[in-house]
């Protein structure tokens, strides 16, 4: 793994697009600096030898649990009550075209 260079502003802008996160210019700059510091700190683990080591994604041994895909307990009124906007029994969003 190569040494991380300081993140460019363009890279930060690209990530904010990927994350669907609108950031102000000052947020961009402060995140650019802070992320660079965190990633630089992460560089320390590059020296750990991990050849042939499987990544650990969940800390205890678990097996896949399957169940029939049936609807239980479902109150659509309660769920719709949290919608910012709705039309009848549908979620409504503003027109975007």
């Amino acid at each position, binding site marked *: 793994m190569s040494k991380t260079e300081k993140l460019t502003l363009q890279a930060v802008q690209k990530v904010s697009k990927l994350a669907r996160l609108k950031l102000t210019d000052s947020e961009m700059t402060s995140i650019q600096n802070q*992320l660079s510091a965190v990633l630089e700190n992460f560089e320390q683990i590059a020296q750990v030898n991990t050849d042939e080591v499987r990544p650990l994604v969940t800390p205890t041994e678990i097996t896949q649990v399957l169940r029939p895909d049936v609807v239980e307990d479902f109150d659509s009124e309660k769920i719709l009550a949290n*919608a910012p906007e709705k039309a009848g029994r549908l979620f409504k969003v503003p027109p975007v075209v």
Partner: protein
Amino acid sequence: MEQLSLLEIRDGVRAKKFTAVEVAQHFLDRISKHDKAINSFVTINDRALEEAKAFDQAGDFSGSLAGVPIAVKDLLCTDGLKTTACSKMLANYIPPYDASVVTRLKKAGAIVLGKTSLDEFAMGSSNENSFFGPVKNPWNHDFVPGGSSGGSAAALAARLAPGAIGTDTGGSIRQPASFCGVFGIKPTYGRVSRYGIISFASSLDQAGPMARTTKDCAIMLEAMSGKCKNDSTTSNEAVPQWSTKIRQDLKGVRIGLPREYFSESIDADVTKATLEAITALKARGAMTVEINLPLVKHAVSIYYLIATSEASSNLARYDGVRFGYRSEKAPDSLDDFYASNRGEAFGSEVKRRIMLGTYALSSGYYDAYYSKAGQVRRLLRDEFLEAFETCDVILSPVATTPAFKIGSRISNPLEMYLNDIFTTSTNLAGLPGMSVPVRFSSTGLPIGVQLMATHFNEQSIFDVSAALEEDFRAGEKAPHGI
């Protein structure tokens, strides 16, 4: 009544010394009297008295938490009761269901008093990142209560509830417990269902009890634990009755002292607390074993990569379509709509973590960051498992310092993150870990020590905790004016 333990309150309700309504009323009164200064609750359950009355009338006091009022971190969904994660994003969200943990506690007879503050989406170590304002440490209002379960810890210390629920992703139960002088345990990963708990980092998150005695924690954890059909990561492992098996004679118990945990720059009072705890345990017949955990020095780095990666994925659901905050601004495009809703509603720490996680998972960086972190995570877990072949419980500080001043670290995230050095490894390895109050700093702030054990061995932790509780009685003292 507020000085009674949770267990004493339950026994009092069972013996009809007082009713569940009287108990709930007492604590609600205390909240309205004392919480303005502390800000630990964000929502009071306005049906608490009604629920207590229904409980009294039903007359079944057999539940292990019969009539006990509890505070619940505002990260756990409560049916019909606002659940905000202390974010502008969910400021008006009313869940249509209870988290499994809440269902189980209610089934055991607990009455939910209200919802306690946290760092937004549990991201933080100081409770300064709450949309509803910082929580004050009841021991000194200029200091943070810790985080992210800062509201639960502060409410307990201020005797506003005899028991509380927290969640812990990298230390969020243990660090505030230490800062506020209460007990708190993060159980083994898989002990407690995550269903209905607003997800931060799914492979690290666990809910756990916080209380003012070891036994109270054990009793609450018994009620919370066990397989849940709605969370496939819950374990089939039997749930022992820890509270009835606590032994305080520690003859032959091996206490592991990780060399690495004592070499960091640690506050003198914290070192003193840790050494005094070791001396006390030795006096009870425990023996100490020096252990090596060389990878622990990387835990914070691995943790922030993994936690933020999982968070960036978990928080993708907040788009302002079906629930949550929606921008007033007319969007130019669908992406613009999502980006505005999210950009306006998330606080700066949440944004920072989503950005880090998105970067770590993005094309070209995944192997270097997320995969690499996962590989070192496995090696770290194996190191702990090896250490537990030579010891029963590992003892360490909880945090490098006692509570710090509000505002003193918020501008430097890296410094704030390094504060989590002793707690994050337990989550990465899935191990149980507990904070036990031991003494006070020279400035009167509480300090706890951390106890860790191997997977599903919460019993050894409770045994050692009960011994420290009896020797130091540090959880009995109440803050001034409370």
